[in-house]
């Protein structure tokens, strides 16, 4: 068990270090001098050089990388060139929107998908299954931002139930803030739920064909009891894998969805930072998102061990 845990942890850390190198390297090769950008076109070469020295831009590459990574650990991400505030403040502020959004969407998609998958698998080939899987097939094909536009049209423009966009901030009260996250969360969750429901169904059906299901039936357990007691837990592994992958998709999805709904989240921050060439912000946010993906994959790996005893005893 501990061997498995340690190995997965080591892999996650190694991936994280490599990823940080990639992010750093990519932004190193970017055209444009941040010092020049900050001072504007009128600044003299001497002034730029002075600022470069102050910002540590003239230090050797390795040193700058280490300094950057060291900063990440002490939550000092540097200062944004355009906002002129510490990046960590920006991130903290924006995370208060993005994180609840992603979590609500993930919860929503899981709550919808698993029961639908179970329902479909237990009524395999019957009308209920066909309808549910038809809907899922359609759900997979819908781009979330288009779905978001349609939701806005129906619920905000037509029915005027929720705001069409914007975010009042948590200071305005929990309910108004949640209300403005509702449509974005639904838009993000539904296509993911469609995928998850399909995976749940096919994983269950695969498991239901295993020999040990027949053994359980030969014990006298009715079909339903076999489904719940034997099939579900064995079907969890592919479902967990997809859940992990979906978190990455959800994070990426928030970048688009936040733009559709004008939500002041991380996605919008990174998007604007790119257009404004605010590299330090891009660097930090991308690193943060990548770290989140790696962390979630680690959690998924660890939860395999909870589900499957074979992983606990093997390496």
């Amino acid at each position, binding site marked *: 068990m*501990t*061997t498995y845990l*340690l*190995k997965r942890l*080591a892999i996650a850390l190694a991936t994280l270090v490599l990823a940080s190198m990639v992010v750093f390297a990519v932004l190193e090769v970017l055209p444009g001098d941040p010092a020049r950008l900050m001072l504007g076109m009128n600044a003299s070469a001497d002034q730029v050089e002075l600022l470069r020295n102050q910002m540590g831009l003239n230090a050797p590459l390795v040193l700058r990388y280490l300094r950057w990574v060291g900063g990440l650990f002490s939550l000092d991400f540097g200062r944004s060139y355009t906002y002129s505030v510490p990046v960590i403040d920006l991130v903290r502020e924006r995370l208060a929107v993005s994180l609840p959004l992603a979590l609500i969407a993930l919860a929503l998609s899981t709550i919808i998908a698993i029961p639908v998958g179970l329902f479909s698998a237990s009524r395999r080939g019957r009308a209920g299954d066909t309808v549910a899987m038809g809907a899922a097939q359609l759900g997979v094909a819908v781009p979330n931002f288009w779905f978001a536009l349609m939701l806005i049209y129906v619920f905000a423009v037509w029915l005027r139930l929720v705001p069409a966009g914007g975010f009042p901030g948590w200071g305005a009260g929990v309910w108004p803030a949640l209300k403005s996250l509702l449509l974005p969360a639904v838009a993000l969750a539904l296509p993911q739920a469609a995928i998850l429901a399909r995976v749940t169904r096919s994983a269950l059906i695969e498991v239901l064909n*295993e*020999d*040990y299901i*027949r*053994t*359980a*039936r*030969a*014990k*006298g*357990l*009715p079909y339903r*009891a076999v489904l719940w*007691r*034997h099939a579900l*837990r*064995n079907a969890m592994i592919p479902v967990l894998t997809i859940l992990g992958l979906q978190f990455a998709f959800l994070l990426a999805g928030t970048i688009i969805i936040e733009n559709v709904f004008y939500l002041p989240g991380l996605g919008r921050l990174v998007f604007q930072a790119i257009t404004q060439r605010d590299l330090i912000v891009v660097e930090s946010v991308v690193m943060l998102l990548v770290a989140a993906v790696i962390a979630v994959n680690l959690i998924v790996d660890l939860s395999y061990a909870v*589900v*499957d*005893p*074979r992983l606990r*005893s*093997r*390496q």
Partner: protein
Amino acid sequence: MSLLEIDNLSLTIGDTPILKDMELSVAPSEVMGLVGESGSGKSMTALTVMRLLPHAARATGRISFDGIDILAATEDQMCALRGDDIGMVFQEPMTALNPVKTIGEQVAEGIRWHTKASRAEAEDRARKMLDRVGLPSAKFPLSRYPHELSGGQRQRVVIAIACALKPKLLIADEPTTALDVVLQAQILDLLRDLVAESRMGLLLISHDLAVVTEMADRITILRRGEVMEAGDTARTLSEQSHPYTRQLAQASMHVPARARPHGAGSGQALLQVESVTRDYPGRRTSLLWRAPDIRAVDDVSLSIAPGRSIALVGRSGCGKSTLARMILALDRPTSGTIRFRGETITGKSEAELKPARRDMQVVFQDPYGSFDPRQRVEKLVAEPLHLLEKKPTRAERREMVAHALHEVGLDQRDMDKYPHEFSGGQRQRLSIARAIITRPKLVVADEPVSALDVSIRAQILDLFAELNQKLGIAYLFITHDLTVARAITDEVLVMHDGMIVERGKTNEVFDHPRSEAAQALVTAAPDLHRAIARRMQEQG
């Protein structure tokens, strides 16, 4: 009165007829053997009784169990019967248990379901049952998971599940086919004892006539869904009045006609294995530590003279397949040398091995897995021609393939077919054709007939014998089946725990085994002659 009575049972799955007017009965404390070759419908009979058939199956006729009309029973009634009054044991112990539940949970589950006992009570009964099937609590606590057990131990757990509530009828569908002979004998003993203890009826399904003869009071012989003959085991098999019964019995005991072996005792050895050892790294127990290495083959030496036929026998996991792979240069020994035609082949590069590979080919067990399903027979059989110095032209290649197919009794027109168009026996002929196309001096055959039905097995053994006579090919036969070893080989090597523990003339070793391992194998091996004789004796 019968416990189980099957009358006029017909079964179709989709449009395919599986059973026709099947009849069978089992009395309390009686062992009924149901024998047949693959596709005869024996497993489907069991699943019909359990009502666990696939959805597309339609059964007509009558099955009555203990006064209940099975085919007319509701699903609820069936659930009450299954696991309580009827238990079932399956063929594949490796997959029959749920990998994420402990063995205790799995045995106790049925007890709790049927008796509404508390968890503690059910676990208590499960514990007693596991003790009874030979899994004592000291070594096998309830908290064990299936992957921590071996195949034979898992089959004991499955039997514990099936017998936990003292069923009136136990159905065992090929319960020992996936196990080696020694384990097979142990599991059969266990079943026999359980039947005797609780006056349980046993429906034992098997393809192996010898196993059924040893176990069953009465026997039903099934062929293509129809009952050929049924009756008292001893009489049915001693009289062999039905032609199909006779055919099955003779095929089971078939010995191919062979003249004296080729070039016996002449000159230099073809293959010499000298103190070969193979270690596999032990399992990693933590990031830094490994378990000690596992020694799969331990200081093995042997030699094979040209044209001789040698058997390598042993229980599963004794290292015989690893040894075969090293001889074929598909795996490297940790130490020791292997010489083929006097030249060392250990440590040689693939290019240097070419001439040796040309003279040394292989036939595998699984006639379904040993061909790439995407290639035509011509390409498959011609694959070893790649080893020839001079690449044959297409016409030459077709000529050589046609010749090889002819030698193994297939038509040269077969060369444009795909492997799936052939039956299991024909595929094994293809496998042999591929092995002999380069005119090798040695063929290593790893369980070449154990996946085949007895009648097909007899034909393939004849083919091996014929090619040995005609082409002077030496064989190394790897098998766990002593009947096969006796039928086709001159000498035998008995392997145990990676070591060769006994060697000698095949008949002498099997008639008078000296080592413990050989004795265990010989006693456990089912033998039809012996089984019939014993039955006759019991009945006077």
